[in-house]
């Protein structure tokens, strides 16, 4: 589509404009300001506030700039007496019912109404009648409402419809009695709900957690990067007298657009959690850094001297920065330790030698929304990477064929063209079916090393549909999500997905779990590779093996093993049996197995770099000082390196570290193409009822687990068992509130929920929650009584 341009003139300035564009888009791009309330570039046009009225030559009345398409030769005046009179008139009407409570309004100082009223409002109101009062609504723990302030722009309503995919807010009543609300009181349940706070031009919808905490002009703004999913959303952290007060999106069209997920917006509350650690602990007792560091070095050396370096394991969080991951592996290798990993929730490492240098999205985030066909394998993308979900939703609404192979019938707020919902065994079989179907369609045969998986599969109609959509549409993509990575036969799934992608002409991609999952590969926080993806001379133990064959000592960096690892129970056991555990953590552990805790900074208190799903490196500076005596993790690692006598730890700043990592990993071009399967592979099998666990959206890492408001929001999941009603029937537990769950010989009582989105053969029991820790791995046999 070539862009047709027309010539217009605004305030005497000649401009070129895309044909069909609305006037306001053109003036915005040209930096000519027109007041507006209801218009937002990411939402549909409502043209209901009339604030943007401008004079257009030969038009009898002022026209709304947001809803007036440009035309050749159009002459527009945005500040003529006629335009100004119209704008002032609108302003007067808008202020008639608006309360004069700016001094106690959280929006004060960053309020579009306040700003525009300053320019266009009268200083005395001619309205002497009664103002209308609207009762506030309780729409949950994240968004505070003051509905009397609402000016009915309907941005929040359109957001629900057009972006969140579920309309929860609406305008009920009529005329004077019109109100924005949910009608039936309930908490708004969207992973993106906080965005209405930014959209609302007035103080009707404000952030509840930071309400009344400070004034917008007192806040100091710091550019940063969100620390949870692999989108790497750009944010601003707002601090008041050095304390982190809130987080808002920083616009970046190619990453998060203008949006932010609730997790990234409200997780900062975890920074101020009650169990935040301000001093080092040895055996639970506060000590000076010197003593704690000595104890650490001694503890580690002791184990190494007596039992060898192989007795030590390093578990590093995938939300750690590049600098931290890099220094962690450097320290480990300096001590002779090869057991280091950041892939905490991965179950199957059998193909790691042939894995890409870093598994990435396979495309840019922006390309996701233009995809014509996508097969997501093991992904609840809405909850795992909310803004990737948003891009895919756009693709789906534009006719893209989004398809899933999932262990549960997740709710997606866009059309899903085909889906297979199956237990973990069925997932691999379904993928084998798709592989077979793609091969047939393309007239190829499945390569010999995968033939063991596709031999004898009967291709179902759904699998054939999925295959045909991938083959017949371009661009197409095959994406592996969090639930594929935690699948016990990840290698088989990856190999099959790789073949499906290659043979159908789709791109293979990963939806990495955490903010720096990609970075962990590049920085070399791996047992089998060095920084930059070079093979390690001798491979150490991966994250799972380090727990299955327990080590004598562990170094934990930002990790709470029982909540962050694939097999929480094994992790807990291994930690408890260890002789020495040192934890670099922002929080005091309740687990009791930690010998030394070194208090470290949270994401907002350190400088660092994340590499997002696209392989994009994004650095940021600390927004505030670490609490008390806590120190940035990279500094702690530097000191440990020096104290342990490891060479090359004389960094002055985190930039020095970054320069070193970039030297080895910065120029690597991402490539997801695979070494392929293994001859003689048999399809993954498992008998009996299988537990399947996801990690609930607000349980993914230590910080968000401590974000109070998110934890009380409707998307926070409790520990419970979800069973298909038929399965519950067979087990004879229908009608029971709670059931006993036994996994790996350990039993717990959990609430029972009947849910036909769970496939037969599965018991859905989320991980990452204290109540389910004692159970075993994320996928494994389970007995329910």
């Amino acid at each position, binding site marked *: 589509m070539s862009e047709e341009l027309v010539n217009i003139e605004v305030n005497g300035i000649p401009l070129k404009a895309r044909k069909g564009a609305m006037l306001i888009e053109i003036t915005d791009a040209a930096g000519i300001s027109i007041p507006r309330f209801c218009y937002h570039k990411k939402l549909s046009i409502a043209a209901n506030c009339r604030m943007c009225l401008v004079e257009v030559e030969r038009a009898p009345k002022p026209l709304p700039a947001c809803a007036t398409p440009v035309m050749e030769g159009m002459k527009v005046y945005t500040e003529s007496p006629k335009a100004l009179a119209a704008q002032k008139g609108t302003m007067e009407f808008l202020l008639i019912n608006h309360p004069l409570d700016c001094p106690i309004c959280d929006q004060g100082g960053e309020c579009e109404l306040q700003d525009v009223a300053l320019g266009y409002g009268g200083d005395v109101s001619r309205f002497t009648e009664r103002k209308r009062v609207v009762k506030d609504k309780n729409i949950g723990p994240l968004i505070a409402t003051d509905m009397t302030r609402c000016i009915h722009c309907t941005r929040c309503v359109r957001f629900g419809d057009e972006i969140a995919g579920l309309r929860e807010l609406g305008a009920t009543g009529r005329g004077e009695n019109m109100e924005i609300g949910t009608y039936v009181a309930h908490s708004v349940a969207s992973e993106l709900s906080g965005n209405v706070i930014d959209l609302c031009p007035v103080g009707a919808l404000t952030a509840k957690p930071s309400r009344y905490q400070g004034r917008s002009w007192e806040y100091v703004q710091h550019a940063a990067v969100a620390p949870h999913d692999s989108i790497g959303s750009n944010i601003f952290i707002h601090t008041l007298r050095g304390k982190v007060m809130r987080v808002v999106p920083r616009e970046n069209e190619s990453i998060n657009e203008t949006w932010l997920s609730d997790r990234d917006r409200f997780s900062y509350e975890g920074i101020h959690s009650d169990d935040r650690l301000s001093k080092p602990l040895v055996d639970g007792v506060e000590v000076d850094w010197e003593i704690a560091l000595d104890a650490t070095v001694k503890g580690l050396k002791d184990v190494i001297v007596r039992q060898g370096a192989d007795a030590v394991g390093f578990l590093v969080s995938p939300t750690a920065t590049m600098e931290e991951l890099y220094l962690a592996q450097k320290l480990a290798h300096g001590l002779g330790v090869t057991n280091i990993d950041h892939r905490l929730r991965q179950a199957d490492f059998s193909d790691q030698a042939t894995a890409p240098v870093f598994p990435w999205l396979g495309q840019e985030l922006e390309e996701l929304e233009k995809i014509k066909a996508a097969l997501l394998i093991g992904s609840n993308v809405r909850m795992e990477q909310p803004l990737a979900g948003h891009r895919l939703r756009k693709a789906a609404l534009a006719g893209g064929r989004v398809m899933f192979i999932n262990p549960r019938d997740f709710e997606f707020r866009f059309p899903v063209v085909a889906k297979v919902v199956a237990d973990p065994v069925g997932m691999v079989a379904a993928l084998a079916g798709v592989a077979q179907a793609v091969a047939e369609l393309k007239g190829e045969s499945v390569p010999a090393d995968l033939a063991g998986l596709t031999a004898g599969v009967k291709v179902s109609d759904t699998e054939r549909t999925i295959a045909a959509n991938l083959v017949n549409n371009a661009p197409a993509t095959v994406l592996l999500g969090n639930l594929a990575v935690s699948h016990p036969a990840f290698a088989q799934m990856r190999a099959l997905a790789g073949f499906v992608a290659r043979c159908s002409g789709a791109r293979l991609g990963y939806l990495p779990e955490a903010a720096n999952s990609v970075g962990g590969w590049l920085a070399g926080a791996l047992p089998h590779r060095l920084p930059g993806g070079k093979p390690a001379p001798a491979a150490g133990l991966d994250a799972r093996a380090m727990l299955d064959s327990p080590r004598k000592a562990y170094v934990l960096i930002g990790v709470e093993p029982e909540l962050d690892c694939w097999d929480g129970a094994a992790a807990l056991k291994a930690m408890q049996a260890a002789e020495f555990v040192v934890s670099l953590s922002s929080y005091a552990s309740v687990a009791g197995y930690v010998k030394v805790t070194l208090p470290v900074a949270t994401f907002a208190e350190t400088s660092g770099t994340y590499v997002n799903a696209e392989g994009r490196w994004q650095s940021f500076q600390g927004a505030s000082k670490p609490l008390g005596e806590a120190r940035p993790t990279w500094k702690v690692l530097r000191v440990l390196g020096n104290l342990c006598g490891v060479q090359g730890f004389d960094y002055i700043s985190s930039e020095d570290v970054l320069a070193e990592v970039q030297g080895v990993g910065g120029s690597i071009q991402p490539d997801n193409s695979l070494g392929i399967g293994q001859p003689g592979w048999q399809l993954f099998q498992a008998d009996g009822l299988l537990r399947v666990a996801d990690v609930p959206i607000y349980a993914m890492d230590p910080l968000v687990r401590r974000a109070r408001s998110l934890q009380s929001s409707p998307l926070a999941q409790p520990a419970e068992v979800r069973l298909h009603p038929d399965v519950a029937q067979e087990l004879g537990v229908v009608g029971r509130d709670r059931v006993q769950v036994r996994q790996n010989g350990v039993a717990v009582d959990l609430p029972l929920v009947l849910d*036909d989105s769970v496939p037969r053969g599965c018991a859905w029991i989320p991980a990452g929650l204290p109540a389910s820790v004692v159970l075993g791995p994320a996928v494994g046999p389970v007995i329910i009584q």
Partner: protein
Amino acid sequence: MSVRKSDLLSAHARAEIDQWVSRYPADKKQSAVLAALREVQHENGGYLTTELMDAVADYLDMSPIAVYEVASFYSMFELKPVGRHSIAVCTNVSCMLRGSDTVLAYIERKLGIKLGDSTPDGKFYLKKEEECLAACCGAPMMQVNHIYYEHLTAEKVDQVLDSLE
């Protein structure tokens, strides 16, 4: 096995809604919302409940709030239980000039209730704020259960209301 919110709708209501749905393009089912609400309200003794609105939303693939918006916008929908017979007196300009205020006051006195209320026996409901019903030439007028009565006088009002069961 799974229970749907639209299960609440009677077979008759469904048939009626389907007939309306069939008049619109397949992807514009929500166009039938007004007819659907009217039917459901009628079957429910003259008012809508949240459950019924949810049922309509489910049946027409709309979000519930979109149905609440419609139902709360139009004055012909009642969202609270009301008397069996709905009396709407037009008080707009033409009717007002022809004495609708007197008519209204008379009905209020006769039934012993205020505008917007129902009689305690649940027989009558005096509907609030009815705007011009396009019968100005017969002003003053009222609408009782969908039927127009024009050129109202006290006698005529008595006659109409007394004849209702």
